[in-house]
């Protein structure tokens, strides 16, 4: 027979309720520890609300507290630390975790963007809006309970101003990300089709042609021409000839490489066309440099070989 108290609940029911609440609180603290947050309660010396997080999650006080709850806590303090949290605590902790992930600091933004990159095709802006809404709701919950703490940590800034910055940054970031995705799709669509699948090989053949041409020119220059002028003049002429001849070779330069540099430039807000053109120019410069190296090497090699066999400098 259980004894009834004044509030209509038996003592055991009251104890069970208190234990349940304490376990919920404990789950928050555990989650905070796992996530590496510091509870403000430690700093304040009495408020042990694990949901009112430190620097990352200070907006997210996800567990409303009541005076009776605090009373119950003090009664059951020694026991509850050894007990496991109940499944009831999961929604609260997961909500606070989600809210913490959507808070405005750069680390969590990166996490969101990484997640977004993993589900590139599915996730659209509407989903993001939902996530942002849930973030706002969580933040509103926090406003009810931890306004003092928030003001202490943010100074005099109102909460909306503080939220708008990260949200605006996130929007901007995501618009750039969409642009990067468009470029990616464009590059995928520009992949060589089966009928012109030999373009890579033909590009290689053009490259080999260039290298052999440079080497032959170097030999020719060493043997015949260089007594009259600089060795770089014929090389420049050859490069001009290559520019003209490149029309007659199949275009193999559609093979755009998606490098980290490309991604970084895209995410910095540089238009995709500019990047594509720059990369094209860069690759052409690389080709010319390679030709120059081969040309110069062959020239020196030829010159030294002729010198070794006793042929005088012209």
């Amino acid at each position, binding site marked *: 027979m259980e004894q009834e108290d004044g509030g209509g609940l038996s003592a055991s029911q009251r104890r069970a309720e208190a234990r349940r609440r304490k376990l919920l609180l404990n789950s928050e603290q555990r989650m905070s520890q796992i996530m590496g947050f510091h509870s403000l309660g430690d700093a304040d010396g009495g408020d042990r609300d694990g949901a009112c997080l430190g620097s990352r999650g200070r907006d997210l006080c996800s567990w409303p507290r009541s005076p009776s709850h605090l009373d119950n806590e003090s009664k059951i303090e020694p026991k509850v630390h050894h007990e496991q949290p109940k499944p009831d605590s999961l929604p609260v902790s997961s909500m606070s975790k989600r809210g913490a992930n959507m808070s405005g600091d750069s680390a969590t933004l990166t996490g969101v963007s990484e997640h977004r990159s993993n589900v590139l095709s599915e996730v659209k802006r509407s989903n993001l809006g939902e996530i942002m809404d849930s973030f706002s709701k969580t933040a509103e919950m926090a406003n009810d309970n931890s306004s003092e703490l928030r003001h202490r940590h943010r100074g005099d800034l109102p909460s909306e101003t503080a939220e708008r910055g990260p949200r605006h940054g996130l929007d901007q970031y995501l618009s750039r990300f969409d642009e990067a995705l468009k470029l990616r799709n464009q590059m995928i669509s520009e992949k060589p089709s089966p009928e012109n699948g030999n373009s890579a090989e033909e590009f290689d053949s053009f490259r080999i042609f260039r290298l052999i041409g440079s080497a032959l020119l170097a030999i020719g220059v060493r043997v015949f021409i260089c007594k009259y002028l600089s060795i770089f003049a014929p090389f420049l002429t050859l490069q001009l000839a290559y520019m003209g001849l490149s029309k007659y070779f199949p275009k193999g330069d559609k093979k755009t490489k998606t490098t980290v540099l490309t991604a970084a430039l895209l995410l910095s807000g540089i238009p995709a066309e500019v990047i594509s053109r720059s990369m094209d120019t860069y690759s052409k410069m690389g080709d010319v440099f390679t030709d120059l190296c081969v040309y110069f090497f062959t020239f020196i090699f030829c010159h030294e070989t002729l010198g070794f066999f006793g042929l005088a*400098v012209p």
Partner: protein
Amino acid sequence: MVHCSIMAASCAWLLVLSSVLLCNLLKILLPSFSSFISRLLQKDAEHESQMRAEIQNMKQELSAISMMDEFARYARLERKINKMTDKLKTNVKTRTAQLAKVKWVINIGFYILQAALMITLIWKYYLEPVTILPSKWITPLERLVAFPTGVTGGVGITCWLVVCNKVVSIMLVPLG
């Protein structure tokens, strides 16, 4: 003596070229070389294969035993198999860790040697060109080509190293 020194000076370009070629070749052969070295250093592989064969035999024997009729023998054999499997796992783990360490040491050693060789070459030919051409041949770029020697018409070590690296890497593309 003087003739030898002149020969050595005239072969500087070849020396640099050979060094670069050697380094690039070694870099290509480095994985197989480190595998060979680790195989030489580790003689446990035979022991491991022996253990594997033993485990296989015991498993065959275990499959021949009826668990209902000869439970004690079955359990004893199973325990033995488990013990040997654990031992084999530990051995393989140790050997893999050692292999990774050997490869790492060889790679690091190679890169240190390569850097030392390049620094030595640059140090040696810092002031004297690897080869000399008539200055009018390389007219607009003579200062760039001669860097850091400052000798008119000379080909500096920096330029020659860059050229050799590029050409050798192109030549070694078919070798992977």
